[in-house]
């Protein structure tokens, strides 16, 4: 029978099927960070349990590490917030006590879990991967079944290397065609969420396919899978192709020598079979997608940059109508006004959605030779890992940003969720490359607009949203085959 990619991954990890309809699924690898692991380690200690397979776990602090150079130079003792300090220290202590490999705050390989997994080749095609973080869907870009779990399940995986799960439904999101100049992976996924809604993928694993997805780099595919959860799907997937294999090759945790050949052979089957059944199919044309900007307090509240803010009077569903009214009030926006008229107070380029080297280049291309507008209070660029930062500096991107008036920071989750000191003040509008525009997400009373790195950089320069297709982009020597096009 023809199988979807998700079916194949599920079947390949089935340990046992139980009479009650649940299944025991094997988890190949887990990523750990400081926020959702302490109670899991505590649970192990209380029950007198040990991790089943130490090598199947990799840890790094990311959510509440500071990103200013000054704080980071002092390592862990540089963390000024005493409660954050305890949490990062607790991760250190737990990793030491249990023997879990950790890239600690001083390690060049430290970074956002969903950036370092792929970067290290720890994320591989065909795996099941979990992390106590909903954006674990990111790793599905490699044809891996990756999903976010709660802390109880972090502990469950540590102790048993398994999870009790029910199989999800299959959804296919097909984007065919060629993305226009200035339109990026971020715009594609925002357009998809706008189409199906934040609950559209609930109960489903989404496979992203079509010629536009095939045309994306691995970074772009990660951006798309990362936000599957914003469409309600725990799992996002892209089939394995030559780009996937090329990306993984030679990375520190990737298979070597004979194992490499054996692995590549196995990975070549990681795609949906011809004629495989999907419960839901959604199709978009790449040519129809313009640069996107969210205007409200849910990722589904999104419009093309050329659009206008919706009017609740045009909405018939009373719950949705009230949602729009509430969002407009929170965001302090007027119905029917132009998206491009929204002024921007702060700009954040970073997060597990958009902090990889390609994202840095995409933003730098726009920032090059320009200046952050005087009305913008702060524009910051936060690379996703120490290695992304190093690479970007080797390419001179940091200089482009600093000359333009951006702050160049140390790696971490930063203002995506504002657990550290990087946050919005009440009422501030932020052009952000992150993934969630919920009320208070980037700081109490803060107003988030989700955009691509190129669009965020353009907003920084103009002080309001600007269609990146209308401005000249400086090609960098490293982006001849990629970038914002």
């Amino acid at each position: 029978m023809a199988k979807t990619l998700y079916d194949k991954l599920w079947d390949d990890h089935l340990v046992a099927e139980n009479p009650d309809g649940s299944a025991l699924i094997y988890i190949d690898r887990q990523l750990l960070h400081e926020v959702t692991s302490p109670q899991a380690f505590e649970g192990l200690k209380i029950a007198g349990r040990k991790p089943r397979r130490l090598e199947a776990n990799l840890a790094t602090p990311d959510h509440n590490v500071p990103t200013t150079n000054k704080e980071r130079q002092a390592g862990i003792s540089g963390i000024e917030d005493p409660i954050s300090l305890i949490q990062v220290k607790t991760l250190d202590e737990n990793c030491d006590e249990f023997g879990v490999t950790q890239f600690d705050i001083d390690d060049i390989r430290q970074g956002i879990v969903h950036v370092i997994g792929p970067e290290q080749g720890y994320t591989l095609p065909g795996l099941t991967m979990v992390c106590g973080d909903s954006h674990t869907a990111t790793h599905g870009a490699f044809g891996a079944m990756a999903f976010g779990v709660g802390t109880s399940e972090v502990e469950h995986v540590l102790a048993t290397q398994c999870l009790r799960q029910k199989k999800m439904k299959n959804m296919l999101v097909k984007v065919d065609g060629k993305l226009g100049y200035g339109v990026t992976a971020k715009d594609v996924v925002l357009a998809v969420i706008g189409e199906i809604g934040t609950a559209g993928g609930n109960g489903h694993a989404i496979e992203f396919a079509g010629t536009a997805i095939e045309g994306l780099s691995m970074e772009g595919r990660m951006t798309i899978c990362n936000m599957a959860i914003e469409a309600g799907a725990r799992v996002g997937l892209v089939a394995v192709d030559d780009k996937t294999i090329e990306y993984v090759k030679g990375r520190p945790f990737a298979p070597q020598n004979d194992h490499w050949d054996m692995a590549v052979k196995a990975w070549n089957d990681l795609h949906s079979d011809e004629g495989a059944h999907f419960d839901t199919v959604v199709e978009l044309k790449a040519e129809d997608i313009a640069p996107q900007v969210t205007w409200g307090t849910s990722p589904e509240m999104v419009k093309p940059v050329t659009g206008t803010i919706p009017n609740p009077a045009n909405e018939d569903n009373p719950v949705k109508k009230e949602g729009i009214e509430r969002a407009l009030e929170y965001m302090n926006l007027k119905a029917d006004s132009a998206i491009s008229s929204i002024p921007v107070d702060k700009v954040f380029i970073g997060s597990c959605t958009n902090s990889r080297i390609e994202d840095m280049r995409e933003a730098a291309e726009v920032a090059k030779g320009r200046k952050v507008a005087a009305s913008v209070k702060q524009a910051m660029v936060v690379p996703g890992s120490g290695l992304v930062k190093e690479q970007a500096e080797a390419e001179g991107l940091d200089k482009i940003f600093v000359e333009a008036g951006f702050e160049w920071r140390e790696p971490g989750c930063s203002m995506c969720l504002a657990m550290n000191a990087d946050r919005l003040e009440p009422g501030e509008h932020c052009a952000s490359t992150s993934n969630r525009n919920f009320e208070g997400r980037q700081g109490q009373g803060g107003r988030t607009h989700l955009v691509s790195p190129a669009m965020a950089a353009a907003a920084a320069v103009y002080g309001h949203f600007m269609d990146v297709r209308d401005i000249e982009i400086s090609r960098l020597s490293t982006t001849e085959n990629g970038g914002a096009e």
Partner: protein
Amino acid sequence: MDAFTQHKGLVVPLDRANVDTDAIIPKQFLKSIKRSGFGPNLFDEWRYMDHGEPGMDNSKRPINEEFVLNFPRYQGASVLLARENFGCGSSREHAPWALEDYGFKAVIAPSYADIFFNNCFKNGILPIVLDNNIMDVLFEEAESTEGYQLDIDLDSQTITRPNGETIKFDVEPDRKHCLYNGLDDIGITLQQEQSITDYEEARKQRAPWLFS
């Protein structure tokens, strides 16, 4: 984990869709390394007029009297009525921890985000799914009747309204079994230790690069 068998309690209606886990428990409280103590900061940004931080004396903070959880008539509520896609967003289990610590035993909504739904069962909270038309009735009754209580019985999978009418709800058998008996999930999985070891041996043959 506490077992959930039967619960009768005061109902509070939270009439908005897509309530996310950042709203249920804001990020600054996630810095705790404990599982308990999140109740006073449940819905923190909606419940209080000031900005909350860990370590504050919450009893001294100005409360938002317009937020439904603060209405005098809903004090002591243990059943939460909610709308579509409740608990969307982050995977933080701190969200059910906060609901549980506040005193909620059950949530009733037309739909939930998958991770949140799953996390509830791990913490003795029963998330019930009902059709929108029944939800509308419950919202209306809870808002119009002071002291409105629902009686939830997991064994028979029924909710009894004050007028004696019952509503049936679905729950997956394995989740029901664990919640009803307050079972430790890990303990159950470890009973299948032999199957896990057998699987690992086979996987080692097929994908040796994952074991070197």
